[in-house]
C-alpha cells in the first residue's frame, strides 16, 4: 500500500474512532440527546454556521488572538532562549526569572491583564503569549545549549567569525528543538485563547460556548468546541509540514 496513504489513514483513524464512540454513546442510550447531541447534528450546525458572517467573525476574533499571542511567544521565546544559551550574563538573569515564573499559573494573571489592558484582544493576546512563551523559550535554550561543540569549531575553522556563529550554526542546529517547543506552544495557545474567551469576552469561540451554555443550547455549545479542536488539528498539521521541510536533513529522533 502507498505509504503516504497509510499515513493519512493512520491520522484519520483516531478521529473516526472518536466519532464512532460519540455516536454510540447516544445510539446505545448512555447519554440523553439533551445533554449530548449526536455528532451529525453538531456537524450539520457547524456547516450551517460556516456560511454566516457572525460565526466567521467569531472565528476571526479567536484567530487574531491565537496568532498574535503565538507569534509574540515565538519571537520572544526564540530570541531569549538563544541569547540565554550563548551569553552567560543573560543566562544568569533569565534562569532565575524563568524558575520563578514558570510554576505560576499564568491564567491567575488574567484579571490583572483585564484591568490593565481591557476586555478585548490585548489582554487575551498577552495571556496566550505568556502561556506559550515558556515551552518555546526552554526548548530553544536547551536546543541551543546542546549544539555539538565540534559543529561550531568546524564552522569557525572554515572562517566563520564569532559574531555569525549564532545565526549560521546555533540557530539551524537547534531547529528540531525549537520546532518541538513551537508545537507545544501552539497547542497551549489554542487551549488558552479558548479558555480566556470563556472566562470573559464579548466575542470569539470560547465566548460562543459560554453563551450557548447560558441558553441551554447544547448543539451550539459543541460547535465552538469542535471548531477549536479542528483549528488546532489543522494548525498542527501545517506546523508539522513546515517541520518536515525545515528538518529534511536531520535524522529522525
Amino acid at each position, binding site marked *: 500500500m502507498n505509504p503516504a496513504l497509510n499515513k493519512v489513514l493512520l491520522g484519520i483513524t483516531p478521529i473516526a474512532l472518536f466519532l464512532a464512540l460519540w455516536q454510540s454513546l447516544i445510539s446505545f442510550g448512555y447519554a440523553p440527546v439533551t445533554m449530548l447531541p449526536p455528532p451529525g447534528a453538531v456537524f450539520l450546525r457547524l456547516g450551517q454556521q460556516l456560511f454566516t458572517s457572525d460565526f466567521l467573525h467569531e472565528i476571526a476574533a479567536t484567530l487574531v488572538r491565537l496568532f498574535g499571542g503565538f507569534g509574540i511567544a515565538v519571537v520572544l521565546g526564540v530570541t531569549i532562549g538563544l541569547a540565554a544559551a550563548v551569553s552567560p550574563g543573560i543566562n544568569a538573569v533569565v534562569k532565575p526569572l524563568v524558575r520563578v515564573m514558570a510554576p505560576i499559573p499564568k491564567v491567575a494573571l488574567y484579571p490583572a491583564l483585564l484591568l490593565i489592558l481591557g476586555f478585548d484582544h490585548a489582554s487575551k493576546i498577552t495571556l496566550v503569549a505568556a502561556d506559550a512563551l515558556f515551552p518555546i523559550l526552554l526548548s530553544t535554550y536547551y536546543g541551543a545549549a546542546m549544539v555539538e561543540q565540534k559543529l561550531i569549531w568546524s564552522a*569557525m575553522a572554515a572562517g566563520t567569525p564569532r559574531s555569525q556563529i549564532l545565526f549560521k550554526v546555533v540557530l539551524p542546529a537547534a531547529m528540531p528543538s525549537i520546532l518541538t517547543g513551537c508545537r507545544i506552544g501552539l497547542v497551549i495557545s489554542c487551549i488558552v485563547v479558548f479558555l480566556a474567551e470563556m472566562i470573559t469576552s464579548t466575542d470569539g469561540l470560547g465566548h460562543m460556548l459560554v453563551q450557548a451554555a447560558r441558553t441551554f443550547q447544547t448543539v451550539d455549545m459543541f460547535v465552538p468546541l469542535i471548531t477549536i479542536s479542528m483549528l488546532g488539528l489543522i494548525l498542527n498539521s501545517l506546523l508539522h509540514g513546515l517541520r518536515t521541510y525545515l528538518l529534511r536533513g536531520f535524522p529522525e529522533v
Partner: protein
Amino acid sequence: MSVVSLRSDAQAGSEPLPALKPASAMIEIDHVSQRFQTSGRQSHLALSDINLTIDDGAFVSILGPSGCGKSTLLYIVGGFVQPSDGAAKVKGKVITGPGPDRGPVFQEFALFPWKNVLGNVMYGLRQQGVKKAEAEARGRKLLEMVGLKGYENFYPKELSGGMKQRVAIARTLAYNPAVLLMDEPFGALDAHTRTRLQNDLLTIWERDRKTVLFVTHSVEEAVFLSDKVVVMTRSPGSIKVVVDIDLPRPRKRAELLLDPRYQKYVVDIEKLIDDTGEDEIHA
C-alpha cells in the same frame, strides 16, 4: 629543524627524508601545558610541558593511550582551546583562535545536518566570499576527488560513516588550509572502511603535501601514514619519544604489511606505549 628526541629502539642513524619542500617550521609548540578545572577547587593536568616542532609538509601522528591529552594538544593547535601555559604558533604567529589555515577533521564527522553534501563542502568557500556558482563548481570537483560524485544532493543522514568522513575531508580541503588537523578521523569506522580511507587520505595528501597532524591510538595506522610518530605518556601527557618513520613513499599497504622494517616500527612503538605503565592483570 626537526625534533630529534630519545630514540630507544628505533633505527639509529637513519637518513632524513628527502624533503619535497624546504624544511621550515609550520607549527611550533612551546612549553604548552593544559590544566582543566574539574569541580570547585579540583583541577586536572591534561598536558605537561609539551615542546614540539612540525615541519611544513610533514605527516605527523600523535599516538598515546586514552586520556593522554593528544586530542587536547590538537585542539590547542587548532585554536579551539587556549593553553594554560605556553603557546602554539603557526608560521611564526601565535595561535589565538581557529582559522582557515588549520582545518579540522573530527571523529564524529561534525557535518552540518541542515545542509546537503554539496552545501557542506561549499560552506568554507562561501564563507570566504566565493560566488555561489564558482563555489558549487569547486565543491563538485572536490567531491569527485574524494569519490563521492553523484552524492551532492544527499543529506549527511543518508550516508554511511565512511562517506560522511569523505564529505568532512572534502569540506575541510575546500578552504585550502595549510595544516590538516585530524582527530582520530577513522576511529568510528569499521576496519575495512578504515583501511580504504587511509589509502585514500595518503593519495589525496600526496597531491599537495599539506602539513598533517593526525591523532590516533592505533600504532599501525600511525606507522603506515606518517613521517614521524610522537609517542605520548599517559595523563598528564608529555612527549615520551618522537620516532622517525623511514619508509619509502608512496606507501602501499600490501607491500608494507610484509615489510620487516614496518613490522619492527610497530613492535617497537607498541612496546614504548606499554612501558608507560598501563595496569596489567597479574595472572
